[in-house]
C-alpha cells in the first residue's frame, strides 16, 4: 500500500492507505474529520463532501486519497480560525441552514467562490451554488448570506 503525505488544516500527516480509498473516507475515517459529509452515497452530485485542495473547492468523493499525496487540504474544521468567518457569520445571521447537513460543503465552495469573485451578482451566486444540494432552505437564505458576506468583506 502506498504511503501519502498530506497537509490537512495545517497539520502534516503521513499515512499508508489502500489505493482505492476515497479521499472523503480518508478524511472522515482516518483523520476523524467528520465535518466533510457524504450526502449522495458518493455519487459526486450533492457537494456535501466539498473541501479545498490547494485552495480550490473540489468534491472529495471524486478523488482517491492517493491523488492528494503532496497536496494541502482544508476541511470545514480548518475553515475557521478562532471566530466565525464572515461567511459563517452571515449564514448564522440569515438562517441559511436548517438541518445543516449540506452546510460544510456549501461553506467550502462559497468561501473559494468569494475569494475568486469578491463582489458577485445574485445570478453569479446562484450559478456558483449549482454543485451543492440543499433540501431544506430553498436556497433563498443561502444566496442572501453569501451576498451579505461579500458586502461585509468588500465594504
Amino acid at each position: 500500500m502506498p504511503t501519502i503525505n498530506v497537509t490537512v488544516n495545517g497539520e502534516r500527516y503521513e499515512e499508508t492507505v489502500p489505493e482505492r480509498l476515497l479521499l472523503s473516507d480518508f478524511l472522515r475515517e482516518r483523520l476523524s474529520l467528520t465535518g466533510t459529509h457524504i450526502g449522495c452515497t458518493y455519487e459526486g452530485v450533492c457537494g456535501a463532501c466539498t473541501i479545498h485542495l490547494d485552495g480550490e473547492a473540489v468534491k472529495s468523493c471524486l478523488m482517491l486519497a492517493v491523488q492528494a499525496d503532496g497536496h494541502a487540504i482544508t476541511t470545514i474544521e480548518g475553515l475557521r480560525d478562532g471566530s466565525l468567518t464572515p461567511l459563517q457569520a452571515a449564514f448564522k445571521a440569515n438562517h441559511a441552514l436548517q438541518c445543516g447537513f449540506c452546510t460544510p460543503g456549501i461553506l467550502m465552495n462559497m468561501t473559494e467562490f468569494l475569494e475568486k469573485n469578491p463582489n458577485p451578482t445574485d445570478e453569479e451566486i446562484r450559478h456558483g451554488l449549482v454543485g451543492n444540494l440543499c433540501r431544506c432552505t430553498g436556497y433563498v437564505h443561502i444566496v442572501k448570506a453569501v451576498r451579505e458576506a461579500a458586502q461585509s468583506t468588500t465594504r
Partner: protein
Amino acid sequence: MFPAKIEKYVRPQSIAEALAALGEFEEGDAMFLAGGQSAMQAIKSRMLRPECIVDLQNISELKGIDAAAGGLRIGAMTRYVEIAQSAALNGAFAALADAAARVGDRQVRNRGTIGGSVCWNYMASCMPAVVLGTNGTMNLTAANGGERSIAADDFFLGPLETAREDTEILTSVSWDAPVSKTGSAYKKWGLVTDALPVVGVCVRVSVGGDGTCSDARVSISGLAGGGERAPAAETALLGSDGSTAAIAKAMDAAAEAADTHSDMSADADYRRQLIRNLGREVAASAFARART
C-alpha cells in the same frame, strides 16, 4: 459506490513516463486518470475496474492554452475553469469557453479536463460536440513515441468510443487559425441549471468580405449517437447572409434531419424544438462574434 481493488497507483512526471507506466500492464488493465470527474464515477460504480491508475496530474507538458499565431492548442490536462476564464478564447474559439463555463458545477470545473471529456466521450456531454463543431484535432502519442493527429470527424466514434487506442495518450486538442473572420458559440439545455445536455448546439461560421457565410459547421450534443454534425444546417447557412430568417431556415433543417430520441428527459419532438430554439440563438451569437 466504492472502487474495486486497485493494485497500483502511479503519478508520472512526463508523457513518456506515463506511456511506460501504462505499458507495464496488459492492454486495458491500466488506465489514465485525468480530472476524474466522470472516470471516478465509473470506477466507483465498477463499470471500470482498473488494476492500475496512471494519474496525469503532474505532467506539466499536458497543461495550458497556447493561442499563438491565431491558432489554438489546449493541453489535454487543461481544466474547464481555465478554459472558461481564458481571454484567448474569443471569436472562432468562443464556443469552447461557452461550454466549459457551464459544465457540471464549480467543483467539477476545478478538476475536470478537456482531455478527459473528449476521451471519455459520454453521450450527453458538451466538449466532444464543441470540439466537433469547431473542427478541433486530437493529438495523440503512442508508446513507441509515434505521434498522430486525428480530426474530430474521425475521432468521435459514438458514445464512450473514440479512435484513441488504449495504448495512446491524448496530449492536446488543437485548431488551425481561421482563414477569415470566424465566430463560434455553444449553448445547451438540461433538466436543471448546467446539467448534462438534453440537447446542445454548437455553431461555427466564417464570413467573407461581402458579409455572407463562407464556412459553416454545426454540431448537436445529447443525441443518441453522442455529438453529431448537422450537415443540413451547414448547407443552409453556407452562402447565406446570416439573417434571422436564414438562421431559422437552417435550424429547421437541422431539427428535421436530426435523429432525435425519446427518453425520460425529453421526447423526440421536444428535442427537435430544442435544436430549433438553441440553434437560432447560438447561430446568431456565432455570426455576431464573427463580425466583431
